[in-house]
């Protein structure tokens, strides 16, 4: 986990479910094949209804049409981010698009776990609701050791909740490294 995660914000609403993060029709692509996996970046967050893409503006796709990478590095969401299916393709798609962290009020359990165990993105929980405090395109900086989010565009600063139990897995890199350290897998 990097000490500083910085980049442009992409803001979405509450209850962004896994079908909005990566619609089911795209789950057919390989996650390991270098050519195919890029499509997860192309279709990341493409299931968000158009008017709610990139708040407060709307109609701003996360990944530009025909591109494979997003210009946004940090997704800001509301409550219950990642609810719905267990598809690990969801945090994978965000990572593949170039996203490094999500900051949401709360997460659905499996999405959160997948994000951490696979080491795809860092799922931070905000203390206050940030949807109305951050705009799509604002430049954000997260200090992961201090647990602080700075909005460089507005000058505002927000504290994030401690990562708690999962910090050890994030520091190890993913659950396999964590399991090796715990002695459940040969080194």
């Amino acid at each position, binding site marked *: 986990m990097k000490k500083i995660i910085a980049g442009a914000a992409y803001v979405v609403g509450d209850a962004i479910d896994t079908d909005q993060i990566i619609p089911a029709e795209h789950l057919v692509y390989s996650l*390991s094949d270098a050519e195919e996996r890029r499509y997860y970046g192309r279709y990341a967050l493409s299931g968000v209804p158009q008017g709610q893409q990139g708040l407060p503006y709307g109609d701003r796709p996360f990944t530009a049409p025909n591109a494979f990478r997003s210009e946004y590095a940090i997704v800001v969401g509301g409550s219950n981010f990642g609810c719905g299916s267990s598809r690990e393709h969801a945090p994978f798609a965000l990572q593949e698009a170039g996203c490094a962290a999500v900051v949401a009020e709360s997460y659905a359990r499996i999405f959160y776990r997948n994000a951490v165990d696979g080491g795809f993105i860092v799922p931070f929980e905000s203390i206050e609701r940030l949807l109305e405090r951050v705009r799509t395109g604002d430049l954000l900086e997260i200090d992961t050791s201090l647990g602080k989010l700075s909005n460089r565009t507005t000058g505002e600063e927000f504290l994030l909740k401690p990562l708690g139990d999962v910090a050890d897995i994030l520091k190890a890199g993913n659950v396999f490294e964590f399991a090796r350290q715990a002695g459940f897998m040969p080194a």
Partner: protein
Amino acid sequence: MTITEKILARRAGRDRVAPGDNIWVDVDILMTHDVCGPPTIDIFRREFGADAAPWDKEKLVIIPDHYIFTKNHHANRNVELLRAFAAEHDLPYYYDPGTPNYKGVCHMALAEEGFNLPGSLLIGTDSHTCTSGAFGMFSTGVGNTDAALIMGTGKIWLKVPETMRFVFEGSLPPYLMAKDLILQVIGDIGTDGGTYRALEFDGEAVYDLPVHERMTLTNMAIEAGGKNGIIPPDEKTFEYVRERTDRAFEPVYGDPGARCHSVRRYRVEEIEPLVAKPHSPDNRATVSEVAGTRLDRAYVGSCTGGKLEDFVAAANILRGQEVAIDTYIVPATTWIGEQLHSTRVEGDTLYEIFERSGCKLGQASCAACLGGPSDTFGRTHGSEVVISTTNRNFPGRMGSKQASVYLASPYTVAASALSGRITDPREALV
């Protein structure tokens, strides 16, 4: 300790655990399917070696079910990858599409094939893996990474959840089904009301339900964010299991008065037929509040609403009448598909009833429940208004982002199919 805590303690090799504990547990069964199986196998090979064998092939169950009847090249490729992996390791529990061994929807197939054993611990790469909890076992859904770790080691780390209890008292009225009960719960606590928690169901109305119907309760625990759904087992559970397998099992029960997060009690006679309105399973309304809403399509299918009991319920309403809108019938499994030809309502088979009513009959699979490739049976492509027995109605869930999906019981869906408008099943059941 609750039943959930006791099962986790047993599989962690501990005398006791408490909510919030992080523990490593031994997995009894790992289940995967065609969407998450291939990426799980990729990660497994990356971490354990290209020639590594699964930790215990008697405990690995692979049930392709999501994208089966499609021309999509990548989807077909994923089934081929599973087939090759099963052949490479001589896996005994791989259910190959296109052969008599094909089953259909994994959660129902696990029950039919005797993998759901009271007191055991089952992990699957599908969020609705919580369905198996209807057998008094711990079951939950995970991603590919966790599944790959299990495939190599047989272990997973879990955080012990607090338990929310839901007690359904009284006798279920003839117009209600398990779907109405669970929509009541999800409407009460919201799609995140059970996050990180065990949802435990009991009460006489639950134990009056056939085992398959109980699975509709635990199936949708995830729709409230739950880690697992669970129903302490009874004689009906044991009978169901013993009819299907010789595998040994050891039931577990919670301590009387075990500490819970909360207890909610319902009198089932007071519950109304319900729907979840677009676009969230907690957007509850009574059928009477939305009665008359115009529909384009009705759908009976999926792990939660494509059971034999669901088709019997629908047939009771559709028999001798014609549907007013496109109505799709998709059995969850091939066994249920066969039962459509042998199960009768007043002399007619379910299949005959559906065909004469003008329904469209599909083959056992997940089909349009989760949209899928563009040629998926029953998938939405426009701004259809759908009433469905499935479990999710988030934007785009059944294919098209413009479609609107109402979730309801098979009674309500069938009554609405006849009129083309959302209709109270009590009007059709007289």
